[in-house]
């Protein structure tokens, strides 16, 4: 989702992009615990049969389920932030490869939407002098195009 705020002077602005996340941390707990409970019930039945080798597979799987949801919770905290203040444009980002930030001169800042080709998604690039940072990778194509246009208008 994209959040766009403009200062009263109509010049400075703040653009924040975050990935959609329809499951809260509480929801994650409910889902993972449900899976764990079902696995525990199945495991208990298998134990009564004497089929204990099923247990490590159940355990391993629940660990992977939990890991998958935790990765997604971590990803929910990713963001791209573009802030324009006076003549400066500050970029900051938290993504898969940690945090990144940079500062550009507003007059030199370029917004590029590189088409993906075939059925691949496009990439939204912000930067100057051949030095670009990708933002909005977590958006759907439509939202990314809208964001690119909004950013272009604002700059």
């Amino acid at each position: 989702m994209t959040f766009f705020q403009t200062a009263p002077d109509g010049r400075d602005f703040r653009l924040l992009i975050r990935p959609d996340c329809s499951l809260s941390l509480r929801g994650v707990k409910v889902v993972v615990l449900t899976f764990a409970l079902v696995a525990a019930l199945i495991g208990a039945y298998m134990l009564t049969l004497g089929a204990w080798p099923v247990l490590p597979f159940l355990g391993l799987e629940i660990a992977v389920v939990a890991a998958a949801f935790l990765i997604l919770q971590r990803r929910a905290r990713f963001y791209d932030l573009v802030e324009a203040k006076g003549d400066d444009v500050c970029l900051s980002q938290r993504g898969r490869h940690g945090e990144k930030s940079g500062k550009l001169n507003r007059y030199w800042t370029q917004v590029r939407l590189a088409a993906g080709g075939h059925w691949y998604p496009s990439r939204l690039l912000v930067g100057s002098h051949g030095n670009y940072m990708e933002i909005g990778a977590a958006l759907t194509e439509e939202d990314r195009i809208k964001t690119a246009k909004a950013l272009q208008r604002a700059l």
Partner: protein
Amino acid sequence: MTTTVADHHHDEVPKGITRWLFTTNHKDIGTLYLWFSFIMFLVGGAMALVIRAELFQPGLQVVDPHFYNQMVTVHALIMIFGAIMPGFVGFANWMIPMMIGAPDMALPRMNNWSFWLLPFATSLLILSLFVPGGGPAAGWTIYPPLSVQGGMGVDLTIFTIHILGMSSILGAINIIATIMNMRAPGMTLMKMPLFIWTWVITAFLLIAAMPVLAGAVTMLLTDRHFGTAFFDPAGGGDPVMFQHIFWFFGHPEEYILILPAFGIISQVIPTFARKPLFGYTSMVFATAGIAFLSFIVWAHHMYTVGMPLSGELFFMYSTMLIAIPTGVKIFNWMATMWRGSMTFETPMLYAIATVALFTVGGLTGLMMAITPADFQYHDTYFIVAHFHYVIFCGSVLGMFAGVYYWLPKWTGHMYDETLGKWHFWLTIIAFNVTFFPQHFLGFAGMPRRIPDYSLQFAEFNVISSIGGFVLGFSQLILLVVVIKAIRGGKKASAEVWENPEGLEWTVPSPAPYHTFATAPEVK
């Protein structure tokens, strides 16, 4: 300042084989799954033709009995794990992000992995046919003691099942995570298309059932090589325990095979009946009910092992209960069509055939659910007829409905309707010629999994084999239809059909990298 928007450099589009090897794009991966599924469908189909060629006449003509048993086993494993399950995962990859308004699957790198495990695993299985002692020959249910006594092919099969299980689990986790986490704002659970619902529940079944299978084959492996005696009475084990464990996985697996097909036809029927789906909420609850029941009916596959009477009764009644939610679904589909302004394009024909012919299999299931009756039917051709009516007419025809329905969306071109109709009618007629007589063979007592039979079964087997060959070769029409649609043809509009429901139809065809042309609005 300067801006360049929509500059059409196709930078960094990977080409050739690396595109497919390293792709994390859901459309690429969905395509890989669908092609893989289709190839396995043809490979498994070729094995079925070996079986039907041998059974054309009584006596041994074509292959030796040991190879025949390998064909019976590997045909089933390839069809279940190679054709049907990956086929539905292909649909999930293509359609789920589009239907819920997400940019891609939740875990794209894991998605790549879960696909590429598949060709590796199935190659091992096919390779097992060529090792000393041949492939697995104990039937897809790999019951001990026979499976413990088999050769090295059984070890390869066990390894294959482990890898396939891993692939399915990773795929299921990805699907659940995508549906739970990545829905567009406004897409609440009870607004999700039914295809999404059936996949949530299928993924849940996969996550619950697959580790049980992994454990079961691990115990076979240790019994074979590491001196354990889980299934060996001489060491204090019990071969019947394997059956309990296997079917504890096996029955939910049957619903893993059918539920996504129910989801597909629940999308197709409203479009061509031009009416919204009747009883959406009851559909969701019926699906969940079927999933729940699928965990308490497993021993209907083993009525004849000598369970206590209370056990026989429990499993008989619980199995008969499945008819209720299944019936709810069937009546809902019929009510959707009732007084609709229906048209009969190929996807609709397939959806209607799914409803009608799956019901035949459901009814024979109900017959076998009755314990004393099943003592007669068990291990006869009646079972073979039953599960082909449910699996071929449920899962495979449902999948065909989905292929014809979404092919224009995938390729951007309409398929050839005339060829589609040929494919449909040949498939339906040949299917019934092949499998309907098998009910009579079963009643008359012809056992399943045998390469030779008594003379009184000859006529029905001739009919069945002729039907089988027509059925097999008719599937090549589908290949032609798909290739023609990829190559070109009439351009498909974004909506393709008349006012279909769902976010996927708001996207231009072929579904481009732009996922939405206007903000998705969930009604």
